[in-house]
């Protein structure tokens, strides 16, 4: 079992508010990811990190930002939330082993902007 945690699980906020979605893993993984997924739809990579102080944007353009000050922590921030940001956000980290790399997902954060 992987130890990767996301908070909050569910959040309803008003337009224009600033929010931060937290993601933490206790496995010491260097690589971490944020995916955005609308219900029943595809997973889109919006941010990834190779390690501390290393972040890159993913394939789907996102107005969110991320930071990686500590290995175990990879928060995602929206400075001014809009209804178009309503979605599920999934955090993941990658374990690198002899048999290959495996991605472990957190339980997700459901964001609704009203």
């Amino acid at each position, binding site marked *: 079992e992987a130890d990767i945690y996301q908070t909050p699980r569910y959040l309803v906020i008003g337009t224009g508010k600033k929010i931060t979605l937290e993601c933490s893993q206790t496995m010491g993984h260097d*690589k971490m990811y944020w995916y955005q997924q609308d219900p*029943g739809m*595809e997973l889109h990579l919006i941010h990834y990190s190779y390690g501390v102080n290393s972040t890159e944007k993913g394939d789907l353009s996102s107005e969110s930002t991320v930071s990686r000050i500590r290995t175990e922590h990879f928060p995602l921030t929206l400075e001014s939330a809009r209804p178009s940001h309503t979605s599920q956000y999934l955090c993941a980290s*990658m374990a690198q082993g002899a048999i290959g790399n495996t991605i472990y997902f957190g339980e*997700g954060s459901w964001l609704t902007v009203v």
Partner: protein
Amino acid sequence: QQPVQSPQAVILREGEDAVINCSSSKALYSVHWYRQKHGEAPVFLMILLKGGEQKGHDKISASFNEKKQQSSLYLTASQLSYSGTYFCGTAGGATNKLIFGTGTLLAVQP
């Protein structure tokens, strides 16, 4: 750039077999397969690291054709618990940036 999966959706009766395909327009270094149940996070099924490699777990197996940039997931004698959306994920080069496919919804009926 996103891998394309086919079919988009499939409905099976218990005990029937299914094949899900994943095609990429870019060279593949590895292919991952995940299953996602409704309202839950994706769960890792298996990873294939090199062309021609086939892996299996219980009655679910997969193959990887590096030359064709394709992978297929085989579900044999499907069970109700196999229902969900299946995603392939592809990673290339040293970045290990994992991009997921378009997804295949599988519904197994009694």
